[in-house]
């Protein structure tokens, strides 16, 4: 189960609207980076048959089955830190992560 905060959903919706196409957001992981796993966050133009689709606040979040175990239970949030703004993940599976949090390890 992946959830997305209302604020994040609003931003995703507006990005999609601005982009002019796309059905939702793909959230997943890839192996790479300094601590093993890295998040990926992409627009989705077409869903794959095996995708898990979670919908909250009107936004579809698609997750491929192989990624799900690493991120199940994550909440996506959109925050502003100083002048920077972007997406942030509250992932309960994380064991440790690199200093900047772009890559992580699970149990």
């Amino acid at each position, binding site marked *: 189960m992946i959830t997305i905060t209302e604020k994040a959903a609003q931003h995703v919706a507006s990005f999609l609207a601005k982009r002019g196409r796309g059905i939702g957001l*793909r959230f997943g992981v890839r192996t790479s*980076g300094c601590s093993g796993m890295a998040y990926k*966050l*992409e627009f989705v133009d077409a869903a794959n048959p095996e995708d898990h689709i979670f919908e909250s606040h009107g936004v579809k979040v698609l997750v491929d089955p192989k990624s799900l175990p690493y991120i199940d239970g994550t909440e996506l949030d959109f*925050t502003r*830190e*100083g002048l*920077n703004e972007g997406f942030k*993940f509250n992932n309960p599976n994380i064991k440790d992560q690199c200093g900047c949090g772009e890559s992580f390890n699970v149990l």
Partner: protein
Amino acid sequence: MALLQISEPGESTAPHEHRFAVGIDLGTTNSLVATVRSGMSVVLSDELGRSLLPSVVCYGPQGVLSVGFEAQTHQAVDPKNTIVSVKRFMGRGVKDIAHIETMPYDFIEAEGMVRLRTVAGVKSPVEVSAEILKVLKARAEAALGGVLAGAVITVPAYFDDAQRQATKDAALLAGLNVLRLLNEPTAAAIAYGLDNAAEGIYAVYDLGGGTFDISILKLSKGIFEVLSTGGDSALGGDDFDHRVYCWIIEQADLQPLSHSDARLLLTRAREAKEYLTYHGEAPITVRLGSGEYVDVKLSTEKFSEITRTLVQKTLTPTKKALRDAGLSVAEVNGVVMVGGSTRMPQIQHAVGELFNQEPLNNLDPDKVVALGAATQANLLAGNRASNEDWLLLDVIPLSLGLETMGGLTEKIIPRNSTIPVARAQEFTTFKDGQTAMVIHVVQGERELIADCRSLARFELRGIPPMAAGAARIRVSFQVDADGLLSVSARELTSGHEARVEVKPSYGLSDDEIAGMLKEGFTHASEDAFRRALREAQVEAQRLLEATQTALAEDAGLLSMLERAHIDSCVARLQAVLVGDDRRAIDAAMATLNQATGEFAARRMNQSVRRALSGRKISEIQI
């Protein structure tokens, strides 16, 4: 933890490998920085939420005191050390700067570019601009949470090479990696997505705080070409403020104002102007330091009336730019509005009327250039979406080439080549034992050097002495993404090399480029004739030299009669050579060739005999 942005499908970057790129609008009055976030171009604001950075740098005894809004407040207090509109000085000498006598600065004439004496020492416009860029860079890095991979910086379309180079230098000084300099009108067109649109002609009307620029762009196959530019470097929103200011003084019948009252009134005038963009009438109430009280109302109609001549002053260069491009109003597919002053309804109306269509104005005219630059920067940094495989290209307006024997032009890079581009061609020596070669770099469409524009001249020395035509000299022309040309020549057997950096666009206006192009077309057949003649002359020269050398060496192989015949053929060729009858030259060459045919055969036999005599077959390697 790091904050993530959404990527295009399949385009997620590896961790720590985000390529942050920004677009910078380095303006005369204000500057901005923008980037692409989650697929969207956004202007980055400072910690107070302000997106504009006034292009003002204030120097104190210790160095830079402040940049931007704070520096702006120093302008009245310390005008000599507060540099505004530094863009006007970029790459300019004292004599190039208009109204220099009215400026409060202490100018110093220096080679290449003017310098400014400030309390912090002598500063070049490049250094001042770098201070503005440093602030924008710091803002971008704070906003993106990382180091910038590069920046696209916009410059006016009419900027010549010295001005472009100065802008690039300022960026380097600020520690920015310049991905490309982009023409401001092109950036505005990109922001409106016109580069994705069909081919067509677009006009970009840019009325800023203190300058007006009009550019006519042609889009074809994803490439923007600047057809013509025009404008008025001393016309902008400030002039509209001033008209309102004068009107208030007249209406309220004010006595001569103190300096601070004048500034207060000017501020009120600007506020009234901005208010009128969305309202029919602007109330202006001020209590002046002199105790006088101003209470007037300015209506939209009155505002239009008092600024009519200013609006008209923008339309004249606009029409001229169209004429220069050889276009009529009906051929313009779209009009892009740039600059805060284009918010004024009377401007929108006048431009709409002139072009007979609604101008594009749904993007913030103050930000549109920066937004377009950010889109381009994102693309150049390699963050491009897979389905948007367009790449914006600039083209070379005039062919680049070099001079060959006979004063002929050899084009190396043809015009309309997209940049960056590199081309190389091999040349050889004309005379026996020639050890040096002059490389004369020219620009233009004509066949004869005399009709082209000379860019540079340099010498390649150290060519090993060889027979004419045996040396191999590779000449490479390279034009980088900013239109800067470097030419190198290398002798391939010895490795000797010489090179030169050239500024092809220096001092050439778009008008002149257009003129040179047109001449190339109208003189095409005449040029072709002259080229053929020169080629025949060069070939004849070569033949005469070869004949003379042979006669000097082996005159003994000829009978008196044969020698006389060859001499008469040589004389005939020499006689027709100076004329312009190519056929006569060709015919005389043919006769001489025929006359020397037997002589050449005998020389050949003789040298073979010399090579073989007294040697065994086994010693001769074939």
